């Protein structure tokens, strides 16, 4: 029954054939629309030409949770329909059992090239179940022109950001720009809030909710401080509506010239500098602030990996494709032609890559210092942990709950979800 369901689902996906050739036909599911799909297609077709195999593409559904549900059903049914999957950096723990170990196929040299945090994200119980394809990390967008006009440096700590944002907001409003806000970010109750809140907490050395060994660490004073600080932003330097903002809403406010600072992913860079942007050329990208003087610059690691199904009829060719697409040459091509962020640190110093994307120099640090969400430790239950976390953080930000009082409850809920810390 489940098997038939999966076949039906696979049938519903749209399949596009590539060049006919001898050899095996490898099916690749790469998500994304427009440029990101073109990047994926061109790379895979190039591999097909060189290796004499064929590539078929399937387009998965658009939403991440629908994608995950579909992949789960396909893989649970043992379907060989898709050989190579593009997966989110937080999915290896959920889907890892269905993927082959790529450690030996890649070899230590290739594995060693990639960001350690990315490799860690792709490793489940000692098996490398996916190869890092492109990275993502939170960065701070700042209005250079406003900082200069008001004689303020780029903030190094959250406290400094708070003061600078409040000062510029006050003076700009006094000058008649009464829609000006200090700081916009992602506060809606969804995965993005987990990402933001983890950045506040980790930058204060308050841990990552659950440690890699499965210990629940969220109930600590530094985490409480970080959340209490963020609670103070809502309505003062951040618009009250930030509690329902996702990435695009935050970008809308920043790009129309109504915010001094914005937390976002690197994708926004091209857009805030586009011709129709009110702030083109006035923006700097800098690492996210530290939490206090003894904190550290960090951000939450995002990104995508490629994994090979263990039900694949041509695992060798599929693994070869995954390794080709995640390899140095292809990541370089993707960076130059599509501003995709490599998972290989060396590429951030590559002259051609930097010439094509001058701001990559600013990103390198953020990506190198990024922390993982607790997706390995929590495995199958990551989504539930994240949902519990963002729902409770949202309650704190709306003022319904006090940060100090909420954390013990959250810990208790996580203990329940993990059946007593056994994940």
């Amino acid at each position, binding site marked *: 029954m489940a098997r038939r369901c999966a076949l039906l689902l696979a049938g519903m996906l749209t399949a596009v054939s590539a060049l006919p050739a001898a050899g095996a036909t490898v099916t690749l599911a790469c998500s994304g629309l427009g440029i990101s799909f073109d990047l994926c297609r061109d790379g895979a077709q190039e591999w097909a030409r060189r290796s004499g195999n064929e590539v078929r593409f399937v387009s998965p559904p658009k939403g991440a949770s629908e994608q*995950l549900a579909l992949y789960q059903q396909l893989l649970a049914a043992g379907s060989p329909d898709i050989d190579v999957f593009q997966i989110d950096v937080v999915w290896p723990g959920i889907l890892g059992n269905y993927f082959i170990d790529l450690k030996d196929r890649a070899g230590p040299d290739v594995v060693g090239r990639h960001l350690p945090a990315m490799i860690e994200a792709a490793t489940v119980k000692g098996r490398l179940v996916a190869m890092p394809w492109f990275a993502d990390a939170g960065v701070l967008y700042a209005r250079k022109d406003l900082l200069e006009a008001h004689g303020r440096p780029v903030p190094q700590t959250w406290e400094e950001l708070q003061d600078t944002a409040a000062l510029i907001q006050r003076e700009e409003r006094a000058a008649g720009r009464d829609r000006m806000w200090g700081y916009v970010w992602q506060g809606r109750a969804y995965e993005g809030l987990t990402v933001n809140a983890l950045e506040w907490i980790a930058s204060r050395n308050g841990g990552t909710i659950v440690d890699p060994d499965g210990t629940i660490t969220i109930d600590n004073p530094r985490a409480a401080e970080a959340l209490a600080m963020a609670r103070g932003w809502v309505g003062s330097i951040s618009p009250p509506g930030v509690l329902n903002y996702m990435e695009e809403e935050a970008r809308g406010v920043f790009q129309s010239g109504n915010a001094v600072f914005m937390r976002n992913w690197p994708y926004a860079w091209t857009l805030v500098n586009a011709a129709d942007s009110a702030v083109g050329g006035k923006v700097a990208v800098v690492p996210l602030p530290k939490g206090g003087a003894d904190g550290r610059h960090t951000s939450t690691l995002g990104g995508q990996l490629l994994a090979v199904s263990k039900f694949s009829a041509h695992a060798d060719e599929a693994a070869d494709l995954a390794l080709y697409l995640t390899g140095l040459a292809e990541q370089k091509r993707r960076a130059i032609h599509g501003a995709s962020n490599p998972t290989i640190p060396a590429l951030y110093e590559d002259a051609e890559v930097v010439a094509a994307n001058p701001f990559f120099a600013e990103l390198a640090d953020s990506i190198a210092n990024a922390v993982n969400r607790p997706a390995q430790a929590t495995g*199958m239950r990551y989504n*539930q942990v994240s949902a519990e976390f963002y729902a409770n953080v949202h309650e704190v930000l709306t003022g319904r709950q006090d940060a100090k009082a909420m954390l013990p409850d959250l810990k208790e809920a996580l203990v329940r979800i993990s059946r007593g810390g056994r994940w």
Partner: protein
Amino acid sequence: MRQRRRAAWLFLLPMLVVLAGVAGWPLFRTVFFSFTDATLATLDDFQGVGLDNYLWLMRDPVWWRAVWNTLVFAVVSVGIETALGLGIALILNAHLPGRGLLRAAVLIPWAIPTVVSAQMWGWMFHDLYGVVNAILMGLGLIAKPRAWTADPDLALPVVIAVDVWKSTPFMALLILAALQMLPRDLYEAARVDGVHPVKVFVRITLPLIRPALMVAVLFRTLDALRVFDLMYVLTGNSRSTMSMSVYARQYLIDFQDVGYGSAAATLLVLVLAVATVLAVTLGRVRVDAGR
């Protein structure tokens, strides 16, 4: 007679088979899964866990909050829609010039898919650019912009308001259809006897349109109890507006917990069934009305 009955069953058979296939079987599967520990990854390899899922569900404050949100949403939105729908229907029933055009115009909110209108209202309620804030500020009703969808005290009222905007036309149209069936001579007689219009409405109109009104209310209530898209588009998985359907979907899809999610979905079906039975018996709704 017996032959006719047999023929009737024969004609009904294809429909019953299709219904069993598209409604009965999935419902049975959902109820079945609710007694197991199935996950999306183990759909054909699971154990029965008896009432475990239900017991955990009963202990989850988030679930009870979702139940409460759903009930508040259903009662308040259907109440307002009924009152407004009745008013609009009475106006449309009067012989106004351009009545046909008005009737068509009223239907527009109902014709727009909920996902689209929810997104549209989401932008209108935006805290910085929303037209709602602009209008209210312009009228001097609020001193500073409100974050309609982000503020936990305002989010549920906003969701209810959007539903009222969307579903009132449906109510109005059903009631209008009932109004236009009413025999004119009753009203003639009442006018001749000089009965006060309010009394006419309470004594003649209301009792006569009651069956249709009850059916409309029942339909809307069942719809409102199942609500999903409005909350999901306007406020996502936020617990301040989470409905039972949003809760069930989160467990089924986001957490891949088919057993637990099915238990939530089954309880939702039970709530719907109870609501229907209550409405039909207490309201004496004639489901077979219209003979």
